[in-house]
């Protein structure tokens, strides 16, 4: 009973603050006579609903733009997961691989993914490949790091037991090391997903003709604050869904693992 009461209280307080802030926003915009056409929250929501049904730009509704962005994130993310997990696991388990690739990886890692934008544009042009490359870089680092950490922290007793029971090297790697590293890889995937979502935005803001980042930058170009804020709203919603989807996936896939609750 008290738990339910507490929940209701949390809802009242949280919702109250939220509404209060929105109200303040509305009042401030209405009261001040600003040079900048800053929209009220109501106008933003109205525009957002409008965007769901009418085209932003020439070709797509906001759902189309979100799908464009998601397709880019998905492509970069998948390539990065494939390469990053393989590199991380092998670096963590085989010392020769680590000796060869670790220094190069450490050399390139500190460079922020966004700092690759100019070079990526020079190399790949301003089409899709450039965005895939950037998202790949943003997602590759956390995947590799976490797979590496997972492979180096495998329980030594498990490995010893497997060896004693006569497992060969490939069996130890595939049957012991890989499954043991999966929880760590999943937490890497969370970071990688939010990184690549953010990098996609930056990449689209620098140059694109569609996508959710384009909506914002197109709003800036015509000084349309309502469109920008509605775009940000969409970004927030999709980012929230992505993060939670990943968490649910992790809980479903890793029922045996109680590390991450």
């Amino acid at each position, binding site marked *: 009973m008290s738990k339910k009461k507490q929940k209701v*209280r*949390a809802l009242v*307080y*949280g*919702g*109250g*603050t*939220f509404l209060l*802030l929105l109200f303040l926003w509305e009042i401030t915009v209405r009261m001040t006579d600003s040079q*900048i056409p800053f929209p009220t929250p109501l106008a933003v929501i109205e525009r957002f609903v409008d965007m769901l049904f009418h085209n932003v730009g020439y070709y797509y509704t906001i759902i189309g733009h979100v799908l464009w962005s998601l397709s880019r994130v998905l492509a970069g993310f998948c390539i990065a997961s494939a390469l990053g997990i393989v590199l991380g696991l092998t670096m963590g388990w085989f*010392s*020769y691989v*680590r*000796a*060869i*690739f*670790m*220094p*190069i990886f450490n*050399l390139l890692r*500190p*460079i*922020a*993914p*966004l*700092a*690759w*934008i*100019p*070079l990526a*544009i*020079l*190399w790949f042009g301003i089409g899709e490949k450039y965005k895939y490359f950037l998202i790949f870089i943003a997602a590759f680092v956390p995947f590799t790091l976490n797979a590496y950490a997972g492979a180096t922290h495998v329980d030594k007793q498990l490995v010893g037991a497997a060896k004693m029971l006569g497992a060969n090297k490939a069996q130890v790697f595939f049957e012991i090391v890989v499954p043991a590293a999966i929880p760590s890889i999943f937490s890497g995937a969370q970071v990688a997903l*939010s990184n690549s*979502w*953010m990098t996609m*935005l*930056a990449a689209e*803001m*620098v140059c694109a003709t569609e996508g959710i*980042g384009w909506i*914002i*930058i197109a*709003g*800036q170009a015509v*000084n349309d*604050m309502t469109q*920008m*804020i509605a*775009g*940000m709203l969409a*970004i*927030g*919603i999709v*980012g*929230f869904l992505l*993060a939670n989807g990943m968490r649910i996936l992790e809980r479903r896939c890793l029922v045996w693992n109680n590390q991450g609750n």
Partner: protein
Amino acid sequence: MTKQRKQFAFRMKVISVCALFGFFLIWYLVTEVWKLAPETLLPSPLKALETGIGKWSIKKPDGSTLPQHIFASLRVSLLGFCFGAVIGVPLGILMAWWEKADMCLKPVFDFVRTIPPIAWIPIMIILLGIGVVAKASIVFLSAFIPCVVNSYTGIKSTKKVHIWVGQTFGASKTRLLFKVAIPSALPYIFTGLKVSLNSSWGSLVAAEMLGSDSGLGYMIQLGRLLCRADLIIVGMVVIGIMGTILSAILDFMEIKLVKGAM
């Protein structure tokens, strides 16, 4: 056994050095010897090095020397980072310690958190122009969020037993906060500071690329417009080095300040 192990470690080191050397050698061969890539796309490592050294004193083509760019970027990022830490850490502690603040602010914060700081850049540019303030507020946003999240988690994961001990000995609520909760949350807070430093450095680059007249991000963006890939590579390397130095400083501070840190 130990001798063997030493030999093994030595061999690994040799391989590492060879791999690094090979990386640069291939880069050199591709650009200088085989000429597989035009210089505007991938300059040779020697050319990049030369540009990097020359950039310390030459103002061409972007109007500032490398130290001026570094100084401009550092000023903005440290300004935003300090504001983010000064506001974010106490807010996180407040939210974790005082239940009403938690209930009021958590939903708002969770909502703001889902929007990446980069998405704020155009709005900030419209509202605040392309000067220091706009960029610093982008950096502030990206530093603020990890600070709040980590100090919140740190305070929330204070051991109940420690608080009970404090209560048994008659400590007041504020005393409990300052003597028990905050010290035990310090490692978390420092992790938050490190994360926020990294993300603020990253978003600074984006902010400078989208609207600026100085700074490292501006330099590499201009390098793209002028097809000066050597300039871009110099900028990227400097961005990497500066990021490493900044996090090394925080690591050092953590070792000095936090008891029981790794």
